[in-house]
């Protein structure tokens, strides 16, 4: 699975960075539920994450299953590489 282009890794890392912010904000808000600033930041990053994933999935196939991502024309889910293979 060495045939992946450079931008696969770049765009994936961008998604990982944005989603990390969301994980951090999630745990923070679990114990600070009244922090309105953090909630606004959370929603802003949630939107940003969705944008990045839409662009990534259009090139490299679905990230999620059960209808949370749209499928490509030939069910790339099982064909495209898994995280430990890249």
């Amino acid at each position, binding site marked *: 699975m060495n045939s992946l282009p450079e931008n696969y890794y770049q765009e994936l890392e961008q998604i990982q960075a944005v989603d990390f912010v969301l994980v951090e904000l999630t745990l923070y808000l*679990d114990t600070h539920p009244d922090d309105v600033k953090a909630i606004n930041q959370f929603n802003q990053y949630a939107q940003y994450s969705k944008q990045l994933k839409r662009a990534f999935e259009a090139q490299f196939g679905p990230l999620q299953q059960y209808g949370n991502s749209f499928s490509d024309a030939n069910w790339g889910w099982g064909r*495209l590489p898994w995280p*430990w293979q890249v």
Partner: protein
Amino acid sequence: MWIYEKKLQYPVKVSTCNPTLAKYLIEQYGGADGELAAALRYLNQRYTIPDKVVGLLTDIGTEEFAHLEMIATMIYKLTKDATPQQLRDAGLGDHYANHDGALFYHNAAGVPFTATYIQAKGDPIADLYEDIAAEEKARATYQWLIDMSDDPDLNDGLRFLREREIIHSQRFREAVEILKEERDKKKIF
């Protein structure tokens, strides 16, 4: 329900095939203070803990599965090109005899995972103190692993995981304070 996402939480790279390091990393896969134990502990405690901290246990428990996948990826990448002889030299001969190159839930010494590693006491403070201790033990394990590893790429991922344990511990400490506050409020009225 849970939704799988086809990405690691943080990129995992290894510099070279190194089954010796993989053998040590298995501690965090199926060991007492490893990621599987953490995920199963928190997600099981959720059902009877006060509502105020169910969200936290759900979210940390879910993140632990992402860490389990990172550890699995590290072990997989460190061993996938190893010959049976190399695995044997690394002390993984016993593992290979039973599992070939497959991963299995046991600790670095080969002891299989057991539910006796984790507890659910039904007492929220007791459960959360166990969770804090679990995070501190996992943090210490990551430190010992980093101290033994000479792979800079691997250490980058291990440092990320070590830092996550610190955050989890911090959040669980806050959860204890939230519950204590609740308890004291009830006493006043």
